[in-house]
């Protein structure tokens, strides 16, 4: 696909005939030069998009595309990058290129036809995009299932006005139709907010939940811009469909301290012997804690003023289960008063602490 395309010609702008290195730059050019609103400088994605924007937001009509050649200024024709260029204009451009290039014949015969299925692919790649189209249409209007003309009478009028306009381009334009539909929300909402340029919006791809089983679409890009390929995004998450905490808890470092956790069938140890092994290692961990407590006890007196601690008689219940109690008590005797074990573990005070 890439080879053939580049062999034909570099991407060029239908509006002003300039050539570009690749399509991305072409699109940026179009957005900045041809699809930019002269009032608020918002960059739209297509000519009709710009027209609708100016109509709805600024109440102004636009009759020609800014910065375009006189024979290419039709605002109703939908061009996005190289998509939407009429075959006749493509051929004409080719001929002009052939004339200046000489005898580099190439395969420009099948080019126009090869181009035809491609634009379908632009948005068609997005999984579920196509099936979203019929769903989107009623979805665009306020509450689907209800007819038009519910509360939003104002925008409804506009929409109805544009409706027949959409139908002009059958067949191939289907994919661009969806693009235009996607464009509606910013205009609708911007209008409803009653503001023009700033304070725009929107969360990317605000999808009403009413669209059933709608496109799971990590595909539709920010600000409703259609992304050509849906396969090049990756979710940074382990493949298993369990929570990150569950995955982490299975890691040996943590699994030791979790007494015989039993997931669905993944119980690591059910025998009493291995439970005791876990208990012993858990006890070792507690011993480490107690080490710190011994050090911390020196600071204890200073801390008492800040955070009074009542040393109580009965030992605090340990967090271990029953069978572990016996070895634990043994440990408790060593450092001193058992009541402080598991109690306040004061860290050395920070330097800034006032007396």
């Amino acid at each position, binding site marked *: 696909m890439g080879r053939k395309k580049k062999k034909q010609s570099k991407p060029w702008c239908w509006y002003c005939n300039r050539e570009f290195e690749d399509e991305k730059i072409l699109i940026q050019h179009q957005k900045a030069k041809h699809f930019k609103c002269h009032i608020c400088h918002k960059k739209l994605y297509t000519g009709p998009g710009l027209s609708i924007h100016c109509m709805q937001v600024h109440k102004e009509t636009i009759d020609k595309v800014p910065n375009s050649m006189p024979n290419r200024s039709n605002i109703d024709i939908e061009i996005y990058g190289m998509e939407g260029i009429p075959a006749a204009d493509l051929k004409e451009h080719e001929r002009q290129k052939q004339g200046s290039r000489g005898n580099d014949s190439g395969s420009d015969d099948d080019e126009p036809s090869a181009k035809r299925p491609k634009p379908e692919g632009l948005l068609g790649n997005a999984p579920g995009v196509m099936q979203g189209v019929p769903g989107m249409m009623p979805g665009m209007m306020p509450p689907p299932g209800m007819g038009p003309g519910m509360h939003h009478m104002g925008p409804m009028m506009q929409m109805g006005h544009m409706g027949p306009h959409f139908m002009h381009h059958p067949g191939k334009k289907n994919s661009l139709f969806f693009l235009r539909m996607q464009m509606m929300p910013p205009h609708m909402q911007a209008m409803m907010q009653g503001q023009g340029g700033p304070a725009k919006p929107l*969360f990317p791809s605000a999808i009403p*939940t009413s669209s059933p089983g709608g496109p799971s679409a990590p595909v539709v890009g920010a600000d409703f811009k259609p*992304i050509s390929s849906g396969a090049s*995004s990756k*979710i940074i998450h382990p493949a298993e*469909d369990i929570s990150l905490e569950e995955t982490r808890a299975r*890691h040996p470092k943590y699994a030791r301290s979790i007494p015989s956790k039993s997931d669905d069938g993944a119980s690591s140890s059910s025998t009493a012997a291995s439970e005791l092994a876990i208990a012993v290692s858990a006890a070792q961990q507690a011993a480490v*804690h107690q080490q710190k407590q011994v050090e911390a006890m020196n600071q204890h007196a200073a801390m008492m003023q800040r955070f009074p601690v*009542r040393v109580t008689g009965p030992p605090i219940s340990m967090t271990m289960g029953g069978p572990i109690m016996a070895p634990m008590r043994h440990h408790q005797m060593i450092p001193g008063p058992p009541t402080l074990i598991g109690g306040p573990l004061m860290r050395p005070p920070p330097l800034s602490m006032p007396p």
Partner: protein
Amino acid sequence: MFNQSALGGFGATATPSTANPMKDFEVAQPPDDSVSSLAFSPATLPQNFLIAGSWDNNVSCWEIEQNGSSVPKSMQSCGGPVLDVAWSDDGTKVFKAGCDKQAKMWDLASNQVVQVAMHDAPIKTCHWIKAPNYSYVDFPMAVVGTAGRQIIVYQLEGKPQEYKKLDSPLKYQHRCVAIFRDKKKVPTGYALGSVEGRVAIQYVNPTNPKDNFTFKCHRSNGTPNGYQDIYAVNDIAFHPIHGTLATVGADGSFSFWDKDARTKLKPSELMEQPITRCAFNHNGQIFAYSVSYDWSRGHEFYNTQKKNYIFLRSCYEELKPRTSS
């Protein structure tokens, strides 16, 4: 009030600016392992205390002072990694729950810990609910996201019962949920975050189905036609005063959003590690977020040498709603 310019007294080492790109206040002596939960003390206490539960089996408590400095107060151990912490609404007790399958109540004044619940499996969340016989019911609503991609909304008044069961609007695994309130401070909906960098705002009883919507977040930009990394939304928190929300993601950034105006209020720079949790203090002056590894890239990327951070940010102005509606 919460003064952003004075750094106050911190612990010893200076934090490299790459670890703190937003130049927020760093909490002194953070936990040694990933932070799993954060909670600020309720309004009933005059001071601000922050509790953090961590995978190093500890729950730590700091007093947060007006100038942003944090004073470690106390720490408690658990039998296993702590997964959630909660305050009682009188601010005297802290609840903690985690992988040791127990929920415990820690009385701060006496520093005693008592077990209050036991389950068969690790406990993921614990919350303090005001009982109906108080004059003002705080949370009559509870929302649970299930592994089967369902949402169950519970009605907690009287005897807790299931109010509604819905299919999730999100197609990927749920990660976090947070309840928001309407103008009258009545819980009215929830925000649901998934591992696919997306948050759904759902009203329990929407007046208009279009009230519910989803938005994408925590994705690396990449080229528009090219590669994009999608990160999990690890936590969502609603500002107690403004009703706006904050999300934190596995990409290591936090963002502030206004769900009514449907706009992003502020993004942040990227931290060196994912942000696992976030919390607002009771009056919405302080936003706390914890930077630690959340396991989103599996155990291979777990680096015990990397320090865990909890940052505090003075956020009241930044979270003001965008529209006047």
